[in-house]
Each structure stands twice: as structure tokens, then as C-alpha cells.
């Protein structure tokens, strides 16, 4: 696991049925591109988050492929329709095989 990785998610606690809500996500990660060299001239191995997904009650909401050009601490913001109460599950996949997860439940009201 890369050091200092911490996922953060902001989802409203409640929404009206069928309402479109805005979701914000941020994960601290150095996103080493693999194209830089250290002070001795040796390439620094690539270490990035390569995939980010969100599911709502098991149904896919977004599925993003990330490439080395994406900046440090990747931030995603997107809209989602909430048909019913349930749980958002956010997953980030690291090059080194680590998987970071975060869940947020939302109520109808």
C-alpha cells in the first residue's frame, strides 16, 4: 500500500426519491507517473490509482480508468439519481494491488 492514502467522500445524508445529488470524492495519493527519474537518474516506478468505481446498491454508477497524466490526489465530482434509500460504495484500485473502499448510506426524506 502506498503511504498516506486516505479516501474521502461527500454524499448528502438524505435526498428525495428520484432526486439528482452531487457526489464529491477525493483520495490522497502521490500518483507517481513512472516517467520521472530520481536524483541518481534511475526511473521512479509508476504507482497510481488506475481505476475508480462507484456502486449504488450493487448497481454500477461510474467506472473510471485513470492514466498516469492524472494529478496527485485525484478528485472526482459527479451527479447521481437516487431512486431509493441505500448505500453508495466507492472503490479505488492501486497499481500495487491495494484496494481502498468507502461506503456512504443515504436516506429518503
Amino acid at each position, binding site marked *: 500500500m502506498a503511504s*498516506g492514502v*486516505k479516501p474521502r467522500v*461527500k454524499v448528502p445524508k438524505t435526498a428525495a426519491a428520484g432526486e439528482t445529488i452531487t457526489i*464529491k470524492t*477525493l483520495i490522497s495519493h502521490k500518483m507517481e507517473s513512472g516517467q520521472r527519474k530520481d536524483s541518481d537518474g534511475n526511473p521512479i516506478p509508476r504507482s497510481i490509482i488506475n481505476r475508480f468505481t462507484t456502486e449504488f446498491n450493487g448497481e454500477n454508477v461510474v467506472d473510471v480508468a485513470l492514466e498516469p497524466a492524472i*494529478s496527485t490526489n485525484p*478528485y472526482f465530482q459527479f451527479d447521481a439519481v437516487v431512486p431509493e434509500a441505500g448505500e453508495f460504495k466507492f472503490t479505488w484500485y492501486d497499481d500495487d494491488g491495494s484496494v481502498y473502499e468507502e461506503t456512504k448510506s443515504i436516506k429518503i426524506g
Partner: protein
Amino acid sequence: MNRPQTLTRAIAFAAAACVAAGANAEPDTDQLVVNEEIEMITEAAAPAHTENLSTVYSGWRFRADETQALQMDDFENPAMIFVEAAAEVWSTADGTKGNSCASCHEDVESLRGVRAVYPKWNEAAGEVRTLEMQINDCRENQMGADKWKYTGGDMTNMTALISSVSRGMPVNVAIDGPAQSMWEQGKELYYTRTGQLELSCANCHEDSYGMMIRADHLSQGQINGFPTYRLKNTKLNSVHARFKGCVRDTRAETFKPGSADFVALELYVASRGNGLSVEGPSVRN
């Protein structure tokens, strides 16, 4: 036959160019409210000791709307990643005495107001101290830990954490009494031209604020928003690191971060922003 028309067009064009230039010469009129809660003062009557300005503006007012928006919500403010990292360090014991910051200060909220009055005269030590100097004094004497590098990541993260609990409070740095000679020294530096380009701080930040410096909109160089997350290097930047960058850009040998010269300059520059809100950690270019 076409001539009058062309001339009219030329005049219209010139007028439009003037308007554009006029817009560049001023800070914008946006209001800064962080988390829909903390109302920031980004414009204030200049303190009496800032003779050559009538109004002081936070650097936030000179930034593009997109950059401004990043600072208006803690979730979107990338600096908050570093504040969270410092919050962990806050309660982690370090050094030979087994103390953490929390051992003495408990919650960081207990330091609300601290950022607003630093740099500050320390009677026991007989010197003007910056927040960084005070933190290292705590580490050395209260914790028995190694000092942090003056502009290092740990240090800047911690100043960001301490600053974050004072956000919205007006900067109120004391410049009289025992601090006065240091302040005079800082003022002297502010108006001294350095480097091959022979520029003083005042040439850009007092005479020319609002104008473009290459692709960037020159601010008044206020430090109420420090430490600052800069989009150009995606990390927190401390006041002295910024000073060093500015002096270097005049093509001069710079003073050392943490040196008496920069402490004096920080005291003077901070005092020019008395009345503006503490914004740190802010987001800038």
C-alpha cells in the same frame, strides 16, 4: 471613403482595450465565505502604518473564479489533506519526554487566535518569534524532540492546522514596543531593491498590484492566507519559502528561511495585512 469608419473602429477598439486593462488593474468584487459559514474579510482599510496603500486586499481577490472556488469548501480545498495529516501528528507523542502537542494544548481549537497575532514578541526569549520558531521551541523544550526543518512538510502542515482554527479572525500583529525595531528592519527590507533586476517587494506588490506579471495577476503580497496550497507545486507553501522564491526571482542571493532577516520581513508584511481575515490554508496559483 472608408477612412472615417476605420478610424471609428480603431477608436472603439482602443476603448475596449482600455476597459480590459482597467479590469486587470483591480481585484475582483467576489465575497469569500468558507463552508458557507466563515465570512472572510478580503478587503480592509489599510492600517495607518501602511502609508502607500489606502485599501488592503487578500490575494484571494486576485485569483480566477475557479481557483477561488477551491478555497470556499474544505472538501475541495486540497490543503485540507495536509491539515488532516498534521492533526494526526498533533496527538502523536514524539521525543524523549513522551509528549505530543495534545499533551499540553489538548484540542487544537485551544490555539484559536494564535495565527492572527504571529509573528509575536516573546518576552522570555527576548526575540520576535514566528509560529514556526514557537513550534520548534515546543518540540525541543517541551517534547525533547528534534527540530523540524523550517520550511519542511511537517512544519508547514502543522502551521496550516494551527492557522485553520483561526480562520475568519482578523490579523492583528503588534508592531510597537519591543517588536518595533524588528518591524523597522522588515520595512527597510521591503523597500530595498535586490538582485540583478533591482526590484524591491514594493515595486511589484505596492506599485503594481493588479497588473499582470507574465501570465499571473499580481496581488498585494499579503500573507494572511499562508500557508498556501499552490496549484503549481501541489503542496503547502510557507511564508519564508515564498519570500525566498520572490527574492530569487529578482535574481539575488536570497536570505535563509528562518533567518532574522526573513522573520523581520514576515513581521512587517503581516502587519500590512492587519484587518484582513486569517485565511490559511488558502489556495492560490
